[in-house]
C-alpha cells in the first residue's frame, strides 16, 4: 500500500492504494466518480476515458499509481460554475444520449476535440472518437451536436471582431 495524491477536477484527493490498482477503480471506487464507466476493461470501448494531465486516456489501461502527483479531469470538471459546457447543451438539444451510459465519455472527448479544433470536419470527429463506442448508435446525433457547437462559434467570431472594429 502507498498513499497517492491526485488532483481530480481541481480538488486534491489523497488515498491509500495498492500498486496493482487501476486508475479506473481508483476513480470509481475510492473517489466515487461514477461518470467514469467500467465496461470492457480492455481499452476497447473507451467509456472509462478521462483527461490525465490534459490528455485523453482510457483509465482501464492506466495504473492509479501513475496518476500520483498529476491532474485528472472527468466530465464533472469541464463546465464552469456548475452550468453546462456548450457541447453538453448541444447533446441535450439533439438527443445525443439514449441510454446515457457512454455519454460522459463522449461529452468529454467531443469537448476536448472542440477545444483543440473549434471547427472539426466529420473526418476529424470520426478519428478523434474512434476509440469510443455507443451501442445505442447515437453517432448521428453526436455529430449534429458537435456541428452545432462548431457553427455557433463560427457565427460568433465575426460578430465580435465587427464589434471591435466599430469601437
Amino acid at each position, binding site marked *: 500500500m502507498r498513499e497517492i495524491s491526485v488532483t481530480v477536477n481541481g480538488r486534491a484527493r489523497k488515498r491509500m492504494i495498492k500498486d*496493482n490498482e487501476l486508475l479506473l477503480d481508483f476513480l470509481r471506487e475510492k473517489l466515487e466518480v461514477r461518470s467514469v464507466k467500467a465496461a470492457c476493461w*480492455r481499452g476497447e470501448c473507451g467509456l472509462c476515458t478521462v483527461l490525465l494531465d490534459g490528455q485523453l486516456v482510457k483509465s482501464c489501461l492506466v495504473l492509479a*499509481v501513475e496518476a500520483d502527483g498529476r491532474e485528472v479531469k472527468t466530465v464533472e470538471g469541464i463546465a464552469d460554475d456548475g452550468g453546462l459546457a456548450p457541447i453538453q447543451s448541444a447533446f441535450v438539444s439533439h438527443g445525443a444520449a439514449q441510454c446515457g451510459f457512454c455519454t460522459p465519455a463522449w461529452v468529454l472527448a467531443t469537448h476536448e476535440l472542440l477545444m483543440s479544433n473549434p471547427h472539426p470536419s466529420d473526418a476529424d470527429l470520426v478519428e478523434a472518437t474512434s476509440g469510443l463506442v455507443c451501442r445505442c448508435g447515437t453517432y448521428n446525433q453526436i455529430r449534429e451536436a458537435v456541428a452545432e457547437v462548431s457553427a455557433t462559434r463560427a457565427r460568433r467570431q465575426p460578430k465580435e471582431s465587427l464589434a471591435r472594429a466599430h469601437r
Partner: protein
Amino acid sequence: MSFGSPYTTLPDFEYHRPTSLDEALALLKQYGDEAKLMGGGVGLIAFMKERLMSPAHVIDVKEVKELKMLDNAPGKGLSIGSAVTLSELLEGGVLKRDYTVLHEALARVADPMIRRRATLVGNLCEAIPWVDSPPALIALDATVAVAGPDGRRKVPVSGFIRGPVDIDLGPSEMVTAVDIPQAKGAHSAFEKFTGGSEFSLASVAVMVSNGEKNRLARVVYGSVNSTPFRSVEVEEAIRDGITPGSVRKAADLASEKVECVDDVLATAAYRKHLLKVITTKVLRRMMSQ
C-alpha cells in the same frame, strides 16, 4: 466494481518508476525474470488482466529521461527512444515526410487515446505476429539498440523478432531505442487489410530508394506468418520500376511465394488472396505518387 473477475483486476506486483537508465538497468539486474518493463502499458496491463503475465515487479520506464529522446540528426537518420509514444512520433512532420511507411502503419494503430500511451518499442517487443510496426521497421532497415549488464549491442529488427512473442532480449536487458537509417530519395508506403478485426489479416510495407548505383527495393509482409517475411521475389519484380506490368507480376509473386498460415483470424488460402490485393493496392498508390 471489479466483479471479482480476473479480467478486471491485476495480479499483485510492486511498481517501480526509475528516472534514469542506470536506475532502470539496476532494477532489471536485481529482479531479472521476475520483472516486466512497462512503457505505455497498453499491452502489459491487458496481458496481466488475462493472467498471461504475472510479474512480481513492474518497471515503468516512462520517466527515464534517456528513453524519451526522439532524435532526427541530419544525415544520421531517426533515433526513437523506447518511452516515445506513437502520438509523439506521428505529430512531428518528419515521419510523414521521410519515413512514410512507418507513419502509415502507426497512424492506423488502435485509436488516438491508445496511441497517446502506446510506444513504438512496446509494440515491437510484444512481437505479436499481427502488429503493424515490425514490417514497416524492417522495410526501413531499422535496428534495435539494447542495453544490459554486459553493455550495449545493436540488432536488426528482422533478427530481433525470433518468433511469436519471442524476441532477442535477455531477462536483464532492455531496448533503449529503435534507430532508422536515413534513406535519401526513398519512397515508401504501407497497406493492410483488417476486415473489421482489430488486427491485420495481412499487411505489406514497401520501401524503394533510387541509389546512385543500384535501385533498392524492400518488400516486407506482416500478419501472414509467425514473423514478418521479406520477399526477394517481389522486390526483384519492382526493382526496375513500378509499372502496371511489374505491379501485376509482383502481386502474383506475393500470392505464390509468401508462405501463409491458418490461424484464428484467417485461413492461409484467404491470406494468399489478400497478399495479391494489398500488394496491388500499395504499389498502385506508389506508382501514382
